[in-house]
C-alpha cells in the first residue's frame, strides 16, 4: 500500500490531496495567508483526516504551486505546470491541452500521449486573464465572485470590454454600470475578455483537442462557456478543478 500527499500553495488558496494506492483518499482547500507553512500543514492535516490516516504513514510529499518553496515538510518541489499535467493525465489520459487559470496566473499546457508536458505558455507579468482579475471586477460590480458564472448565463450577449488591464477594465466596468448596462451582460463581457486572452495564449502554443480546464476559475461556468465558444470546442472540467495540481503532486510523490 502506498500513501502520498500533494500540497499546492496558490496565491489565493492552499490545497492538499492524499492519494492511497493511486486513488484520491482525501482533499482540503484553505485560504492562503502569510503563514504558508502553517496553512499547508493544516490543509494536509484535513486531507489526512478525510483519508483516515496519520502523517507518519505518508510515503512521500510533493509541494507545488507559487508557494512550493515554503513547505518545509515536502521531500520534493515540482512546478504546478508538471503537476496539473499529471493530475489531468490521471483523470483523462487522452487530454492533450490543459487550461489552468488560477488566482494570479493562467497557463496553457500541452501534453504528449504519455502525459508528459510537451510545451506550455504562461501569462505575462499582469493580472489580466486570471482569477484575481475576476475578483477585482466582482468587487467593482458588488457581486460575489462565486456567483459570477450564474449571473453571466442570464445574459443574451456580453458587453464589450476592450481593455484587459485590470485597472483600466475596472474603470470601463464602472462606466458601463453608470450607463445602465445590465450586470449580467457586463459579467459575460468580462468572461469573454478573459477567454480571448487565454485563447490567444493557447493559439501561441498550438493547442490540440481534447481540452480540459483546471484551477479555481474553472469553477465558474461562465468562463468555461466563453472559452468553449472562443475555442470552438468543448472543455472537460473535473468535479473539483481547484485540487488537480495537488492531486498531480500527490501522484508524483509515489515515485
Amino acid at each position, binding site marked *: 500500500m502506498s500513501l502520498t500527499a500533494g500540497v499546492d500553495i496558490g496565491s489565493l488558496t492552499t490545497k492538499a490531496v492524499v492519494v492511497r494506492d493511486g486513488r484520491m483518499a482525501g482533499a482540503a482547500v484553505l485560504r492562503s495567508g502569510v503563514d504558508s507553512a502553517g496553512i499547508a500543514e493544516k490543509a494536509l492535516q484535513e486531507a489526512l483526516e478525510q483519508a483516515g490516516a496519520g502523517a507518519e504513514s505518508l510515503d512521500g510529499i510533493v509541494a507545488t504551486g*507559487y508557494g512550493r518553496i515554503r513547505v518545509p515538510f515536502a521531500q*520534493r*518541489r*515540482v*512546478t*504546478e*505546470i*508538471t503537476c496539473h499535467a499529471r493530475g489531468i493525465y490521471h483523470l483523462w489520459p487522452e487530454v492533450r491541452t490543459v487550461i489552468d487559470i488560477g488566482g494570479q*496566473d493562467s497557463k496553457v499546457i500541452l501534453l504528449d500521449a504519455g502525459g*508528459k*508536458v*510537451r*510545451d*506550455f505558455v*504562461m501569462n*505575462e*507579468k499582469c493580472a489580466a486573464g486570471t482569477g484575481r482579475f475576476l475578483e477585482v471586477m466582482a468587487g467593482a460590480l458588488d457581486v460575489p465572485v462565486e456567483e459570477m458564472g450564474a449571473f453571466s448565463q442570464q445574459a443574451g450577449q456580453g458587453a464589450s470590454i476592450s481593455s484587459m488591464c485590470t485597472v483600466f477594465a475596472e474603470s470601463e466596468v464602472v462606466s458601463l454600470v453608470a450607463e445602465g448596462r445590465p450586470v449580467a451582460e457586463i459579467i459575460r463581457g468580462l468572461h469573454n475578455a478573459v477567454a480571448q486572452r487565454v485563447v490567444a495564449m493557447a493559439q501561441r502554443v498550438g493547442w490540440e483537442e481534447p481540452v480540459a480546464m483546471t484551477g479555481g476559475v474553472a469553477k465558474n461556468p461562465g468562463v468555461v462557456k466563453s472559452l468553449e465558444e472562443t475555442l470552438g470546442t468543448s472543455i472537460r472540467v473535473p468535479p473539483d478543478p481547484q485540487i488537480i495540481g495537488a492531486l498531480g503532486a500527490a501522484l508524483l510523490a509515489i515515485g
Partner: protein
Amino acid sequence: MSHLVGWLCHFTPVEIFTALGYTPYRLLGREGNNPRAATYLVGNLCPYVQSCLEAAIKQELPLLAGVVIARSCNAMIHLANVWPHYGAGGKTVVLDVPRRFDEDAVFYFSQNLRRLAAELAPPGEQQLSEERLWAAITWWEEQRAAWRELLACRAAGEDPPGGKEIMDGLARWQTPLNPQEAGKWETVINRLTGQPRGKAARRPRLLLAGSILPRELITMVEECGGLSVFEDSCNGMRLLLAPAARAEGDPYLYLARLYLGGPPCPRMVGDREKRRQYWAAAVDRFRIQGIIYHVMKFCDAAMYDFIALKAFCEKKGLPLLRLDGDFSGGNRGQWQTRLEAFLEMLGVG
C-alpha cells in the same frame, strides 16, 4: 587624460581603439531601475541601452576618453542622439553598421571604419598606420583564438565551464581599466580553464539566446539544474566566432569583412538563412538539448528573431522556452516557474 574608450555593440571593431593607443572598455549596462535615463529616453526603449545612460549619468563608469556608439538598432540610434548631451564626457563617435553582408556592405563599412579611426585619433596624432592596425588585429585575434579553444572544450567536454563562469569571464575581459589589465587577458581565460567543476553530469545542455543575456538569467538557469554551454547574444560569444581569414591587403576591409561576416545577429535581416545555419551548427556541435530565449522588453529585432527560432526548433523537435525580461535584475519571480517547468520537461528534478 583617460585611455579608455567605451563601446557597446559587438559590431564595434575594438582593434582600431587598440591601434590608436586606447583601451577598449565595454559598457555592459547595470541592473536596477533607470530613473535618470528615463528623463531623456522614452520608456519603451531597450532597458540595456537605458541602463548604460543611467550608469553614465550617475557617474558609475570609469573616466572615458570617448564612446563609440554603433548605430546598429533603433535604441542605439536614440542613445547616440542623447549621449553627447547627457552621457559621460569625452568624444562621442557614431558608427553606422550595414544590416546585410555582401561586397557593397563590406566596402561601405570599411569606409566607416576608416572614418572612425580618423575621428577617434587623439588630437595631433598622425594618421593611423596600417602596420599598427594589423598589429592590433593580430593581438585581438590571438585572444579570440584562445577563447575559441576554451569554447571547443565546452563543445566536447563532459564537464565544461558553465555559462555563468564564461559570461563573467567575458565581462572581465571586455572591461579592463588600463592597458596593463588588458594585457593580462590570458589570466582571465586560464582562470576559467583551470577552475574545478564536477557538476555538469546529467545536467541538460542548453543554448541561451537573446539580444542581451542578463547575468540574473544565466545564474538562475544553472541554479535550477541546467547547464548553459552556448550563449548567442550581443553580450555573449558572437564576437569571438567570426572566421578570421586574412586575404585582405587593406586592414579596414579585413575588419569590415570580419565583423559583418561573423555570426549574424537578429538585426541582420537579410541573413535569416545564415542565422538558421548558425543555430543548427551550434545545436549539433554543442549537443544542445533545449533553448532558452530571452526577449529583452521593447527589442523588436529579438521578437522577430524568436519567431524564426521557434520555427527552427519545431522543425528540429527541440524544446524552446521564451522568457521576457527588462534587465532590471528583478525578473526572478516571473521566470522561476517557467524555468523550472522547462527543466522538468528536460528531465531535471
